[in-house]
């Protein structure tokens, strides 16, 4: 079956795709030359331009049949390399632009340029633009090897961000991240080599027309998938994520947690939905979702047991990444073929929702850290009064993330639930509900502590910076309003869904999530409740006592398991085991 000729020629507006990559790259090079004094100005100048390009692509896409193509150097694949944008690319480009701009505003208001180190701002701004360039390349790249280079670009930009503060623990986290990510890329590259050997092209579109269920393809698919899983930090390949994301400066953490892990996830979507389609089959999709469910449970339970806010948020990222992988089995149609339907749309909206909310959360936590001089959960009493904007940001982002109306997560959850019903995989509905409840648990835990009265008057180490806080707040609001956006031109969303966003039914669902979350937080979090003194609590404690002891025991067990899994050799073996498992399940399917 030949590829449709229209997708092998440059379309109108194709140059926008080039510009979306070139503008941030030019920013990187320019600020590298002009050095420390101008780096911030250049970055702040690149941001509106880049955002405008992303919006232009968003507007141009529906005009041209829903895709934009550009042939680089006018060479058509397989010899040349093409850039292609579809609805998925367009929304990811736009979301990335918004998050980068918000983080940029946050960081610009955050760091007075004259003070202290010149090293940190220089590295931060250059790397921020580099991450943008890499992500845009990932979103519009049409060739698996170009995607590999973009993935490496992303890694090279992300790793130094982790160790910006230069402490020994952050250096160790960065080194671990780099090495594990490199192994992941090698796996991806291995798969690429096999695919080229089989079909003589790495162009995604050409490959999608050429692949068939040969053993080589399945092995390549397994290798590439597990390499990308390692880069996305899906449980149990998550050893690098918590220390890396918790150790970086707040603005860097926001980018790392919100955007960087989505890069490899997006390539995984491209690989499964655009290249492999029918090949992975039922069992492999179940494996991915099972790992995702594991990530939700382990990540959330360990998050509830962290005593530092940043680590809590980092572990929450782990759980949220798991949530994304639930989309794979739900996207299967009757013949075991992956269908670009509501499940994919839901997964992508969830990814964007998490990106915005998590970036906002990390920025809020960064402000709290800067304000209090620490981020111990048990010591943040009274913060709500001292730093109201930060706590509100955290709350709004948390509400969006746990699936309250009209957040993106609630829309995503609706879509995914719809697909569980359609495909009859009721078991994943449970995982989806639990995911929301777990999110509610750790968000509420933090909020209750922040809202409780302080032991002693809160002494702020630094005054809150209005600009930074507003940027974070804007991003949190964004996340909370995602459910209201018109997604139809870009993502396949059944129209019927949006009408029932505000109903009694959805209110009940939200209530269940919140109540379930409260119960989980009480049962699983080891921290003394701020209201322990009150009488009502004592009564409750008597009833819940045995359950809570059991919950804490379970939590301790999970945490110990997590620590074992985060050891390097164990994680490496897990990676190989996942590869073998995926390959075996794909062989079983065909």
């Amino acid at each position: 079956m030949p590829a449709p000729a229209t997708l092998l020629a440059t379309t109108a507006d194709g140059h926008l795709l080039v510009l979306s990559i070139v503008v941030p790259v030019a920013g990187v090079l320019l600020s590298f030359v002009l050095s420390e004094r101008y780096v911030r100005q250049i970055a702040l100048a690149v941001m509106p331009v880049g955002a405008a390009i992303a919006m232009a692509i968003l507007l141009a896409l529906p005009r041209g049949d829903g895709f934009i193509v550009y042939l680089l150097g006018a060479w058509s694949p397989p010899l040349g390399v093409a850039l292609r944008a579809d609805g998925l690319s367009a929304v990811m480009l736009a979301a990335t632009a918004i998050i980068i701009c918000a983080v940029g505003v946050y960081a610009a208001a955050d760091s007075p340029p004259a003070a202290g180190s010149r090293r940190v701002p220089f590295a931060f701004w250059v790397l921020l633009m580099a991450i943008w360039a890499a992500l845009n390349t990932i979103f519009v790249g049409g060739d698996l090897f170009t995607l590999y280079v973009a993935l490496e670009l992303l890694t090279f930009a992300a790793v130094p961000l982790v160790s910006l503060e230069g402490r020994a623990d952050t250096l160790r986290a960065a080194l671990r991240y780099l090495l594990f990510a490199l192994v992941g890329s090698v796996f991806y590259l291995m798969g690429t080599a096999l695919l080229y050997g089989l079909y003589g092209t790495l162009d995604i579109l050409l490959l999608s027309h050429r692949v068939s269920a040969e053993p080589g393809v399945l092995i390549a698919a397994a290798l590439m998938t597990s390499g990308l899983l390692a880069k996305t930090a899906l449980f149990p390949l998550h050893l690098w994520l918590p220390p890396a994301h918790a150790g970086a400066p707040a603005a860097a953490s926001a980018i790392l947690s919100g955007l960087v892990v989505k890069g490899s996830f997006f390539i995984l979507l491209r690989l499964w939905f655009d290249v492999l389609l029918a090949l992975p089959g039922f069992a492999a999709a179940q494996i991915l979702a099972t790992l995702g469910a594991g990530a939700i449970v382990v990540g959330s339970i360990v998050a509830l047991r962290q005593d530092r806010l940043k680590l809590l948020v980092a572990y929450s990222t782990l759980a949220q990444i798991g949530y994304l992988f639930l989309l794979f089995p739900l996207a299967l149609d009757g013949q075991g073929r992956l269908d670009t339907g509501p499940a994919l749309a839901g997964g992508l909206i969830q990814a964007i929702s998490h990106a915005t909310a998590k970036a906002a959360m990390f920025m809020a936590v960064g402000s709290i850290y800067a304000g209090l001089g620490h981020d111990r959960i048990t010591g943040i009493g009274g913060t709500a009064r001292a730093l109201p904007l930060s706590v509100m940001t955290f709350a709004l982002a948390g509400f969006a993330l746990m699936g309250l109306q009209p957040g993106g997560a609630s829309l995503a959850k609706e879509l995914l639930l719809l697909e569980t019903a359609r495909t009859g995989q009721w078991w994943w509905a449970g995982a989806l509900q639990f995911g929301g409840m777990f999110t509610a648990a750790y968000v509420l835990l933090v909020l209750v502590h922040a809202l409780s009265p302080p032991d002693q008057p809160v002494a702020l180490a630094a005054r809150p910076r209005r600009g930074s806080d507003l940027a974070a707040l804007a991003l949190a609001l964004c996340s909370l309003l995602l459910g209201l956006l018109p997604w139809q031109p870009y993502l396949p969303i059944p129209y019927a869904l949006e009408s029932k966003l505000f109903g009694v039914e959805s209110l009940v669902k939200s209530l269940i999530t919140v109540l379930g979350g409260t119960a989980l937080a009480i049962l699983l979090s080891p921290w003394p409740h701020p209201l322990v003194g009150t009488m009502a609590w004592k009564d409750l404690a008597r009833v819940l006592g045995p359950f809570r002891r059991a919950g804490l025991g379970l939590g301790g067990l999970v945490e110990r398991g997590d620590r074992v899994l985060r050891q390097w050799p164990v994680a490496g073996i897990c990676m190989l085991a996942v590869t073998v498992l995926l390959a075996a399940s794909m062989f079983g399917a065909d």
Partner: protein
Amino acid sequence: MSIATAFEIMLAAVLLGLGIWTIVVRETFSATVGFVAYGLLVALIWVRLDAADVALTEAAIGGGLSGVLLLGAAARLRDAEPMAEAAPGKLLRATAAALSVLTTATLAGTVLLLPDPAPSLAPASVANAWATGLSNPVTNVLMAFRAMDTMLEKVVLVLAIVGVWSLAPDSAWGGRPGPRHRADPYGVLAFLARLLSPVGIVVGIYVFWTGANHPGGAFQGGAILASMWLLATMAGLADAPPVSSRPLRLILVAGSGLFLIVGLAGLLFGAAFLSYAPALAKPLILGIEVAMVLTIATTLGLLLSGAPERSAEPWAP
């Protein structure tokens, strides 16, 4: 079995032997030496595979730069040697070994079962060589057909420099990278550096220049030039420039910057981004490559020097 096959099996066996040595030997230093030897030898396989461009790359990187990088690190980390007790337990190692063997077996099976006749873009790349006027097909792929990858890879090099520099202590930011090497100006090393550097520079430029039509190219030439700079540095004849130097920064982005500018010119005036007008293709590509050689040589040299750790003032005895 023909004599050629016997030879190939032997070559593979020696290479694998070195690989095994690298992985299983106890001391890190011995492993490092084993890997450097491996890196030198692997060039032979690339020649045997008729991929001379890659052979040159492996020789320049594996032979020279990797060796300096890894051996230098091994010597500096020697005190960290008694960490062997952190080795994973027997069960873990056995599992890892079993899974690695399984991977190898699967991979080997897949490679042996690849389809015949093999798909190839060789005819297409030869048929389209007219567009650039260069007759080295690998250079054509790198500079024309897949120019985007090459450009992004040069940005990766810039980021690697930013990453390495970002590790500097705040006090040394903007200073010179790495330790200042000292050596007897009339000693053996200085003698070698004085004699070898000019030869090496000629060879580096030759390898780059010949890359238009024969195996070679900007990266290989740049790597050789970087090694010569490194030799002069190690012999105390030259010093790394301070990282805040504007000319240095310009050189470091010259390759990717020029690539970008030519690409944009193609977008504005030509057929497409990164396309060259056929009449101008050869001079444009060579121009980019000249800038890239300089950039690559400087980048690789600086990557090996490490993070800035001294003040920008020139060293005085």
